[in-house]
């Protein structure tokens, strides 16, 4: 595992506001890191500092061993950076824009053409290659931005909300592009779409108010959800009472919630004690007591809930049904 991005106590203050507060982390080659957080949490600011667009107030960032503060041009050479909203020159065509990017990245002649052709094919821009960018749809504009980011096949990619505002098919396309590139690069994407983290990321970092709140694999994060491994039993009203009392008496159960869904249907959610698997026991118990459950699930826990718990300013606590 080679460390590709290293942040060391990175801090950025704007006046009295601390946008990024003492953030330290390392991203290795082969990782796709999902950078999660509510708006204004400091995601973009952190990314801009790594890309060399913003200078940190204190701390340092380095990419491939090069310090962003002392040698920004060397860092920018190794980096593909997609700013939020993927801005591009609207009066240029994708062809002329990508040629410009290729030239400034140091490619000439046949190599320049080869790079442009390869990236155009990768993001499927062929049909709009010679139309002004400002006349293109949002999806195509975003693809032009993505093409710009990966034209020089950089070892490190930083993309600020790469799928924001795209339709579901375009999102899927962008995600598969990211997955294809993932095996030998270090990729950081920021997002507030949690399904995206599950779909493409090997690691998730949650940031709120400038501080890292969590840093784990997406499935580890999900395990932190309050309803992780909870068992949901859907049953009739008549059976609900006995089920509640029998299951509630089990050793591994910490809590039970019930919810009347309609006249005859009741949802019973059984929370296990920490680390316990109770679905098997519940199944056995129901059979033994001859009680019928219409359906029974083991819940995985949703990233949304973990995200909420870690980032919400004011927690509503007991009012929430997990």
């Amino acid at each position: 595992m080679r460390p590709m991005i290293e942040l060391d106590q990175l801090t950025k203050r704007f006046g009295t506001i601390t946008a990024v507060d003492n953030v330290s982390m390392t991203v290795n080659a082969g990782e796709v890191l999902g950078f999660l957080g509510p708006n204004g949490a400091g995601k973009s600011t952190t990314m801009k500092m790594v890309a060399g667009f913003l200078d940190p107030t204190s701390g340092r960032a380095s990419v491939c061993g090069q310090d962003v503060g002392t040698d920004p041009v060397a860092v920018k050479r190794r980096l593909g950076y997609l700013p939020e909203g993927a801005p591009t020159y609207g009066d240029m065509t994708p062809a002329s824009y990508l040629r410009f990017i290729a030239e400034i990245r140091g490619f000439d002649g046949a190599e320049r053409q080869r790079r442009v052709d390869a990236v155009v094919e990768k993001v499927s821009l062929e049909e709009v290659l010679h139309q002004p960018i400002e006349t293109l749809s949002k999806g195509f504009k975003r693809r032009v931005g993505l093409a710009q980011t990966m034209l020089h096949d950089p070892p490190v990619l930083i993309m600020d909300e790469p799928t924001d505002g795209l339709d579901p098919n375009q999102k899927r396309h962008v995600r598969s592009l990211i997955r294809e590139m993932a095996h030998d690069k270090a990729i950081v994407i920021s997002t507030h779409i949690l399904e995206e983290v599950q779909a493409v990321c090997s690691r998730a970092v949650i940031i709120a108010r400038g501080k890292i709140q969590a840093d784990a694999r997406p499935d580890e994060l999900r395990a932190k959800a309050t309803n992780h491994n909870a068992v949901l039993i859907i049953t009739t009203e008549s059976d609900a009472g006995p089920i509640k009392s029998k299951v509630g008496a089990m050793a591994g159960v910490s809590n039970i919630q019930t919810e009347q869904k309609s006249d005859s249907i009741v949802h019973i959610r059984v929370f296990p004690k920490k680390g316990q698997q109770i679905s098997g026991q519940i199944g056995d118990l129901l059979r033994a007591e001859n009680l019928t459950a219409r359906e029974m699930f083991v819940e995985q826990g949703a990233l949304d809930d973990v995200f909420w718990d870690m980032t919400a300013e004011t927690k509503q606590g007991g009012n929430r049904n997990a």
Partner: protein
Amino acid sequence: MRNIRIIAKREFASYFGTPLAYVFIVIFLALTGSMTFFLGAFLFRGQADLQPFFVYHPWLYLLLVPAVAMRLWSEERKTGTIENLMTLPISTHEAVLGKFLAAWAFCAIALFLTFPIWITVNVLGDPDNGVIMASYLGSLLMAGAFLAIGSCMSALTKNQVISFIIAATACFLFTMSGLDIVLNFFRAWTPDWFVETIASLSFLTHFNAVTQGLIESRDIVFFVSLIAFWLFANILIVDLKKAS
């Protein structure tokens, strides 16, 4: 150098990607022509020189050059493309110089297209072509100085209109500073050396010296150092304000 050339090439092409370039060139040519013939009485002076042509250049540039410069950085900041540009492997001075040179080359083309008047004066009489060459050079240098001011002001704001107004005002002060109206204001309460310093910053003084055929190194040095100063300020401002 390579990066400056690439940036300049892109920027130059983008002038012609919008109607701005054509509108500017047409207006510039129409105004230089009409001022020369009507205000300058080119045909009735009985002198074969281009004095009535060049004398209005400072006033034309005052209005037109900030219009060329205003988009250089304001637009990048407004559309957010500055974030792309400044995360490419180039340094700030390369970006500033590339953009400036593109705008300057554009002004040079507009100025070059006034060549029919040079031909006209040669057909009608026997002018001193050395003086005319010098005047063209002086005019181009002065356009460069206006542009450097405009480019620097453009880096200050996202708003092109504001950048135009600030740049035009700054250019106006530099143009006027040699005239008595401005100098009398300072004479009353500042020491002589200060008044002389202000007078020496005047575009008009230096430009008129050049158009009279006196190419002195101090006039060239004046414009070149003014360009250098404003571009240096431009680099600092881009670095400071690019992300705000």
